């Protein structure tokens, strides 16, 4: 167990850029050496394809690839055949939406929330008519309006799309309780959870929620880009008509018909992202070796500190769109007198990376918060209090510079 949280030494980007203050972990996290090494080892020592080769390096690659499926299953406390490797959350969610397209009937409705990332909004919006698509309002503390949600569940509710943690507010939903209440009303309603922001903030165990599908991306949890996981209940995965077909996912192809392989391979067409899967496995091992509750406390503590410091520095001139009672590792804010892009641009000149814009959540910004853009801070295992102090100081400077002089 690692006892102290200055994990910068594990992340080689800090050797190349010692002054980097990386506060955009919600977009993508940095990568530790062990993940880079695992991918490098694959390329340099067993660079073969998976499942098809009858020679040693291919068998070695296949065994590594499948061992990641097993380790991911242990990490999520589920079964290996329920783990489908996907290029990321977006692909996983689209695999579900496309795979269910033929099951949607004209009377069906879908319920979502503006707290969702576009990846968990647009695929569902596209499945039904606008008057069958319900977007839950938000509570004063930027949570999901549970009453609205539950009163809209009936026998026609085909699917509910929820995030575990919002990528804008950082607020977490009470997934175990909310999903159970939905299923109590209509057990056939499918529930899809987006866990992209949750993997480093809590132990994600899909079987503890009453959900049917759950997706996440490796690159937000110290893994490589281009790899993620679609988890599903076996019955739910069986509902999915593969939306990409071709090699690897078939058992038999004749000139007149094709049969598909069993799960999980049925949903993994083509040569997969082998090095990505191996890198994801190394990231899961890396996380497994950390003291997770300490990691969570570290990050939540930093964001709570950042929240207070921003509030102290700017008082009524700042609006923080995060609930101090429900803090994870993300917060977004609007500061009077400086546009988020100008702030992010200024911070960048001091090697501070923050996100400015609508963070792939336009309905939330335009229709619920009523502003076009916010600045978002999100911390990682390597973030320190000094990073937050530096960010606060530079934000004060930027505001002095950009604020319109009062005449």
């Amino acid at each position, binding site marked *: 167990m690692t006892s102290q949280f200055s994990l910068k030494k594990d992340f080689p980007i800090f050797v190349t850029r010692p002054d980097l203050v990386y506060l955009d972990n919600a977009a993508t996290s940095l990568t530790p050496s062990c993940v880079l090494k695992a991918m490098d080892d694959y390329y340099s020592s067993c660079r073969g394809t998976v499942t098809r080769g009858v020679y040693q390096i291919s068998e070695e690659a296949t065994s590594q690839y499948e061992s990641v499926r097993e380790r991911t299953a242990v990490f999520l406390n589920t079964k290996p055949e329920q783990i489908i490797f996907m290029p990321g959350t977006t692909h996983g969610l689209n695999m579900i939406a496309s795979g269910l397209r033929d099951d949607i009937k004209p009377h069906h409705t879908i319920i979502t929330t503006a707290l969702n990332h576009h990846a968990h909004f647009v695929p569902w919006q596209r499945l039904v008519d606008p008057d069958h698509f319900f977007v839950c309002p938000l509570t004063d503390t930027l949570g999901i309006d549970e009453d609205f949600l539950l009163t809209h569940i009936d026998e026609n509710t085909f699917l509910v799309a929820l995030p575990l943690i919002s990528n804008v507010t950082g607020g977490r939903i009470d997934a175990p309780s909310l999903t159970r209440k939905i299923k109590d009303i209509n057990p056939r309603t499918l529930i899809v959870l987006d866990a992209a922001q949750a993997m480093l903030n809590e132990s994600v165990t899909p079987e503890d929620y009453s959900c049917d599908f759950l997706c996440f991306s490796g690159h937000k949890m110290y893994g490589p880009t281009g790899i993620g996981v679609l988890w599903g209940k076996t019955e739910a995965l069986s509902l999915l008509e593969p939306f990409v077909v071709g090699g690897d996912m078939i058992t038999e192809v004749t000139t007149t018909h094709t049969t598909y392989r069993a799960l999980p391979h049925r949903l993994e067409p083509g040569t997969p992202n082998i090095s990505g899967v191996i890198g994801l496995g190394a990231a899961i091992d890396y996380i497994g070796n950390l003291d997770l509750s300490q990691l969570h406390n570290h990050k939540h503590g930093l964001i709570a500190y950042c929240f207070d410091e921003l509030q102290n520095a700017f008082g009524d001139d700042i609006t923080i769109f995060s609930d101090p009672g429900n803090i994870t590792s993300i917060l977004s804010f609007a500061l009077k007198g400086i*546009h*988020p*892009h*100008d702030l992010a*641009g200024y911070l960048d000149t001091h090697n501070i990376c923050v996100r*400015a*814009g*609508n963070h792939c959540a*336009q309905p939330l*910004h*335009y229709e619920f918060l009523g*502003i*076009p*853009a916010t600045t978002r801070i999100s911390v990682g295992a390597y973030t320190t209090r000094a990073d937050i102090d530096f960010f606060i100081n530079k934000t004060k400077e930027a505001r002095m*510079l*950009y604020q*319109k*002089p009062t005449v």
Partner: protein
Amino acid sequence: MNVAQQNILDHYHYPEYQGSLEKPSHTATCKNTTCGDVLTLTLEIKSGIIQKAAFSGEGCAISQAAADLFIEMIIGKHMDSLKEYTKDDIVKLIGLELSPNRLKCALLCLETAQRATKSEI
């Protein structure tokens, strides 16, 4: 801070052409969805010549200052010349090196002006 940066801030803080014309002959509004900048241009064009222009909107310093500088440049010019302006002209006008994302903010005024010329009221 260099001279170009100071110039941008000056135009952002004290824009000369902010507002909207009472009787515009042409107008357009464009959005930059990545950062939420919105820009509305009103133009008064007589016999093809841009007589007056004004901008309004919400956005970062680059988008607002670029609009101000751009209007300063096009007043008195023939509307057909708006078609000729390119990204490079705007970059020169701003005088700063811009990342691809910030470039979109700077180019919003050009896009809006070009659209406005097709929008006779």
